C-alpha cells in the first residue's frame, strides 16, 4: 500500500489525474484547500449580537407555527416555534431561543438562500444575561431504547443535518430497530476553507463518539465507522483517543473533493455503492455529520435543543479568520466584522464553501442550522465563458459517473426530458465539472436550472391530472344530479296520481297505506341509492312497502354505510328534510344516535390497532376520500328516508333525548341540498383524517377525546359552523396533499445530500 501510494505520488507529478487512483469513487478534484487560515486559530469566544434573526423556515418541509408574541421575554432554549401538527409528516422542526431576551418583531427577512427571497422570522433582542432553562426537553439522560424515542427527542431538539442539506435528522431515522446495521460518521469535511468540523473533532471528540454510540444503541446498529480526511491529523488523533475502548472505528480517507458527499464517503468506507434512487437507509446504513452527532449527544444527555453551532468565518478578504460557536440567528455581517476584514465588505459573502456555497443576497442574513461557513472572498475577475470543446474533463471529474457535457448540451437546448434520462437527479451539485472545465462553463448552474425546470414540469403534470379528474368528477356529478331530479319528479307525479285516483275511487283497494307525496318521493330516491350502493336486497316498490320492514331496512342501510367507511361520519343531516311535526324528531334523533354509536365503535376499533406507519394512513386517506364522500351522502339519505318513514307511522318510540342532533331545515332549492351534502362529506373526511392522525400520535387516547367532542359538536352545529368545518376540511385536505408532495420532493432532495 505504501509502495503503491509512493508510486502514484511520483506519477502524479507528471499526470495530476493519477491521484484519483487512490480513492474508490470516480473523479474528484484537488482544489487549493486554504484550511490553515482558520484551522490554526483557537475557537473564539461566543459573541452576542445586537439582534438575532430566527427564520421559521430553516430547512425543507412546512413552516412551523410561532408560539410567542412580540414583546415576550424569553430565556435561552425556550421554544419559539413548533410544527403545528403531525411533525413527522411535515418534515419541519421547532425553533428555540439561542439566548435570553425580548421578541421585538416577527417579520419577513431575507433568507440565507440562493434565491434571496424573504420569509417570516422571529427577531430576538438579547438582554446580555444569557439566562437559560436547563433540560428544556425534559430528558432523564438515559439512552432511548427505541428509534421512536430517539426520534421524538431529536424532533423536539430541532436537530437537522448539519452538513449542509438540512434534512431533519429524525426523518432520516427508520422507525424499527435493527434496520440500520452500520452507522457512519462523516468527518471528511472536503470543502476548501471550512474547518468547523475539524475543530469540533479536536475539541469535542468525546461528545461526537458518545452521540454516535447513543444513536447506534437506539437503532441497534452493530458497526460504527468514522471517516476523516487525511489532512486533519489533529482531529484524527483526538477522535482515535476518544474512540479507544469503544466499537467506533476511525478510518482515515484520502483528501479529495468531494469525499464528504454521503454516497462518496459511504463507498469509500464500506465499499457499498448506493443504487440509483435509493437512500442510505435502504442499504442498512445511516450517515450523519460529526456536528449532528454532537448535537444528538447534547439533546439526549442534557436536554439541550440545537441553538448554536460551530461556524467557520474565513476567506481571503479577512485578516483574522476564525471558528466560533455561533448562536443561530447571528447576522453574517457581525461575524465577518469580528474577523477584521481587509477592505470594506461591499461584496456579497458566501454561505458554505467555495465549491458548493452560494452568494447571499444581503450580508445581514442570519446563521441558520446548516451554515457551516461564512466566506469572504473578494470578487475575482470572471473568466470568460467559451464554447464547450467536448474535451471530456468534466466526465472524468464527475464523482457520480454522469455525463456532464451531454447534460449540459441538452439543458442548453431546453430538452429537459433528455436531461432527466441522463440521471441529472443523481447529480450532487458538487461543482467538480465546473471546476475542471477549461471553457469556464458554469455547468452546475445548468443542472440546477434543469432540475428545477423538471420538477416544475412534473408538478404541472400532476396538477393537470388532478384538474382533469376533478372536472370529470364534476361532469359525472352534474349528470347524476340531473337523473336524480328526474327520478324524484317522476315519483312525485306517480304518487300524486295515485292519491287522486284513490280519493276519487272510494271503493278502491285500501291495503295501500296513504303516503304523503313528498315522503314517498324522498323515500324513493334515498332507497334507490342505498340499494345500489349497499346491495341490500331492497325492493323498489316503495309505495306498497310495509312500514316496519322499510324502517328496518333503512336502519340496516345506515349501519352498513357507517361500517363501510370504517370511520365516523355524519349521518345526522338529512338531505331532504321538510318542516315536520315535533314528534318525528325523536326518530331522527335515534338515527343520529345510532350513526354516532357506529362511528364511535369504528373509531375504537381503529385506535386499538397497533400504531403504525404514517404512510399507511396517508394512503388510506387518499384512497378513501372518495369512498367517504359517497358513503356520507348515502348515510344522510338513509337518515332522510328513516325520517320520512317515521313521519308516516306516527312513530312509536318516544325516548326523550336532548334537543339536538338533526337540525331540521326548510328545504331550499336542490342545488343548496347538494352543497349541503358536499359539506357533509367534507366534514366526514376531515373527521376521519383527524382520527387517523390521532392514531399515529403517541398519546392516542388523549387525542381521541377532542376528536370525539368535535364530532358531537359538529352534529349540533348551526349552519355557520358547518360552513367553517367544511372549509377547514378542504384546507386540511389541501395541506395534506401538499405535505405529501413535499415529502416526495424531500426524498429526492435528500438523495443529493450536500457533501461537506
Amino acid at each position, binding site marked *: 500500500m505504501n509502495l503503491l501510494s509512493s508510486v502514484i505520488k511520483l506519477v502524479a507529478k507528471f499526470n495530476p489525474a493519477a491521484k484519483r487512483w487512490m480513492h474508490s469513487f470516480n473523479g474528484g478534484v484537488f482544489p487549493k484547500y486554504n484550511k490553515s487560515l482558520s484551522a490554526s486559530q483557537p475557537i473564539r469566544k461566543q459573541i452576542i449580537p445586537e439582534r438575532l434573526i430566527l427564520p421559521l423556515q430553516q430547512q425543507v418541509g412546512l413552516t412551523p407555527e410561532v408560539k410567542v408574541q412580540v414583546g415576550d421575554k424569553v430565556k435561552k432554549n425556550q421554544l419559539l416555534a413548533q410544527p403545528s401538527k403531525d411533525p413527522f409528516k411535515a418534515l419541519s422542526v421547532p425553533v428555540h431561543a439561542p439566548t435570553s431576551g425580548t421578541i421585538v418583531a416577527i417579520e419577513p427577512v431575507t433568507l440565507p438562500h440562493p434565491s434571496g427571497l424573504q420569509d417570516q422570522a422571529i427577531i430576538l433582542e438579547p438582554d446580555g444575561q444569557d439566562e437559560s432553562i436547563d433540560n428544556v426537553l425534559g430528558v432523564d439522560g438515559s439512552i432511548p431504547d427505541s428509534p421512536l424515542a430517539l426520534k421524538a427527542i431529536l424532533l423536539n431538539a430541532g436537530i437537522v443535518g448539519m452538513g449542509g442539506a438540512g434534512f431533519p435528522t429524525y426523518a432520516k431515522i427508520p422507525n424499527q430497530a435493527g434496520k440500520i446495521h452500520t452507522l457512519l460518521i462523516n468527518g471528511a469535511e472536503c470543502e476548501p476553507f471550512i474547518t468547523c468540523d475539524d475543530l469540533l473533532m479536536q475539541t469535542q471528540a468525546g461528545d461526537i463518539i458518545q452521540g454516535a454510540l447513543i444513536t447506534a444503541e437506539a437503532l441497534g446498529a452493530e458497526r460504527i465507522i468514522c471517516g476523516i480526511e487525511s489532512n486533519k491529523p489533529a482531529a484524527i488523533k483526538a477522535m482515535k483517543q476518544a474512540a479507544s475502548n469503544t466499537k467506533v472505528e476511525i478510518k482515515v480517507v484520502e483528501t479529495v473533493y468531494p469525499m464528504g458527499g454521503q454516497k462518496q464517503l459511504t463507498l469509500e468506507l464500506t465499499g457499498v455503492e448506493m443504487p440509483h434512487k435509493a437512500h442510505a437507509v435502504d442499504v442498512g446504513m445511516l450517515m450523519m455529520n460529526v456536528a449532528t452527532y454532537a448535537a444528538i449527544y447534547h439533546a439526549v444527555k442534557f436536554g439541550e435543543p440545537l441553538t448554536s453551532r460551530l461556524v467557520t468565518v474565513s476567506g481571503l478578504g479577512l485578516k483574522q479568520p476564525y471558528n466560533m460557536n455561533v448562536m443561530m440567528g447571528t447576522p453574517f455581517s457581525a461575524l465577518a466584522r469580528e474577523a477584521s476584514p481587509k477592505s470594506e465588505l461591499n461584496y456579497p459573502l458566501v454561505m458554505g464553501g467555495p465549491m458548493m456555497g452560494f452568494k447571499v443576497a444581503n450580508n445581514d442574513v442570519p446563521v441558520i442550522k446548516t451554515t457551516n461557513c461564512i466566506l469572504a472572498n473578494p470578487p475575482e475577475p470572471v473568466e470568460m465563458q467559451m464554447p464547450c470543446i467536448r474535451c471530456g474533463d468534466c466526465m472524468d471529474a464527475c464523482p457520480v459517473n454522469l455525463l456532464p457535457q451531454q447534460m449540459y448540451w441538452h439543458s442548453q437546448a431546453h430538452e429537459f426530458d433528455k436531461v432527466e434520462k441522463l440521471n441529472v437527479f443523481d447529480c450532487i451539485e458538487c461543482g467538480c465539472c465546473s471546476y475542471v472545465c477549461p471553457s469556464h462553463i458554469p455547468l452546475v448552474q445548468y443542472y440546477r436550472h434543469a432540475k428545477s425546470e423538471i420538477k416544475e414540469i412534473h408538478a404541472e403534470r400532476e396538477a393537470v*391530472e388532478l*384538474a382533469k379528474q376533478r372536472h370529470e368528477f364534476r361532469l359525472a356529478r352534474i349528470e347524476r344530479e340531473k337523473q336524480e331530479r328526474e327520478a324524484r319528479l317522476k315519483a312525485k307525479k306517480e304518487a300524486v296520481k295515485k292519491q287522486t285516483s284513490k280519493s276519487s275511487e272510494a271503493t278502491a283497494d285500501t291495503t295501500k297505506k296513504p303516503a304523503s307525496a313528498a315522503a314517498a318521493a324522498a323515500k324513493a330516491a334515498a332507497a334507490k341509492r342505498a340499494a345500489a350502493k349497499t346491495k341490500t336486497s331492497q325492493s323498489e316498490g316503495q309505495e306498497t312497502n310495509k312500514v316496519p320492514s322499510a324502517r328496518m331496512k333503512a336502519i340496516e342501510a345506515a349501519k352498513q354505510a357507517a361500517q363501510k367507511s370504517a370511520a365516523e361520519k355524519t349521518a345526522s343531516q338529512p338531505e331532504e328534510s321538510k318542516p315536520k311535526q315535533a314528534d318525528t324528531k325523536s326518530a331522527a334523533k335515534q338515527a343520529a344516535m345510532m350513526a354516532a354509536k357506529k362511528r364511535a365503535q369504528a373509531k375504537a376499533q381503529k385506535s386499538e390497532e397497533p400504531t403504525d406507519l404514517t404512510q399507511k394512513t396517508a394512503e388510506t386517506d387518499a384512497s378513501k376520500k372518495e369512498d367517504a364522500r359517497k358513503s356520507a351522502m348515502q348515510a344522510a339519505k338513509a337518515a332522510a328516508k328513516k325520517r320520512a318513514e317515521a313521519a308516516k307511522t306516527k312513530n312509536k318510540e318516544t325516548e326523550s333525548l336532548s334537543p339536538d342532533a338533526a337540525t331540521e331545515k326548510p328545504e331550499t332549492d336542490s342545488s343548496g341540498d347538494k352543497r349541503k351534502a358536499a359539506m357533509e362529506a367534507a366534514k366526514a373526511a376531515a373527521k376521519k383524517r383527524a382520527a387517523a392522525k390521532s392514531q399515529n400520535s403517541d398519546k392516542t387516547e388523549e387525542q381521541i377525546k377532542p376528536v370525539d367532542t368535535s364530532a358531537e359538536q359538529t352534529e349540533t352545529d348551526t349552519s355557520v359552523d358547518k360552513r367553517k368545518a367544511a372549509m377547514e376540511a378542504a384546507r386540511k385536505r389541501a395541506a395534506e396533499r401538499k405535505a405529501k408532495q413535499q415529502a416526495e420532493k424531500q426524498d429526492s432532495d435528500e438523495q443529493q445530500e450536500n457533501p461537506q
Partner: protein
Amino acid sequence: MIEAILIFLGLAVLFGILLGYASIRFKVEGNPMADQIDKVLPQTQCGQCGYPGCRPYADALANGEAEVNLCIPGGTEVMIEISEITGLEPKAMDEAASEPKPKETAIIDEDLCIGCVLCIKECPVDAILGATKMMHTVIQQECTGCEKCVPVCPVDCIDMIPVEVTTKNWKWPEPNADKEKGK
C-alpha cells in the same frame, strides 16, 4: 398466364380476408388521437377555445373540426404539440396568447362576497367552496386559473393573482439567460 392470375387473385382474396378480420378483431374504440391531444392540453377547462372543456376541444381536433391554435393557456408550445399529433399545419397564436403568462389563481375577497353561488356553479374543477348567502373561498391548490369565475361574479370580488414565489417553488435561473436574449 392463367396461373399467375389465379395466384394473384388468391393472394388478393387472402389478404382481403385477413384485413377484414383484423379490422374487426383489432378495432379501436373511440379516437385515440383525441386521448393523445387531451393529454397535452393544460386541462384548465377554461373554454377559451370555444368548446366547453379540454376534452371536447380534443375531440373536435381529432375529428378535424377545429383549428390547432385555439388553446390560449397552452400557448405556442401546446399548439406545436397538437399540430404534431394531428399532422395539421402549425398556426400562429393570437396576439394575446403569444406571451406566456405566469400561473395565476383566483382569490375571493371574502369581505365583499355576497354568497350568490354563481362562481361555484361556474368552476369547472369544483375548487370553490361555499353555500348560499355564505362567504365563498377558493381552494388554491385546486384552482387551475381558468378565470371562468371572474366575469360571473356580480360584485367583482374575484381577483386573479400570480402564484407567489417561495423558497419551495423558486427555480434556479438559467445561466447566461440574459446574454443569450441580448444576442
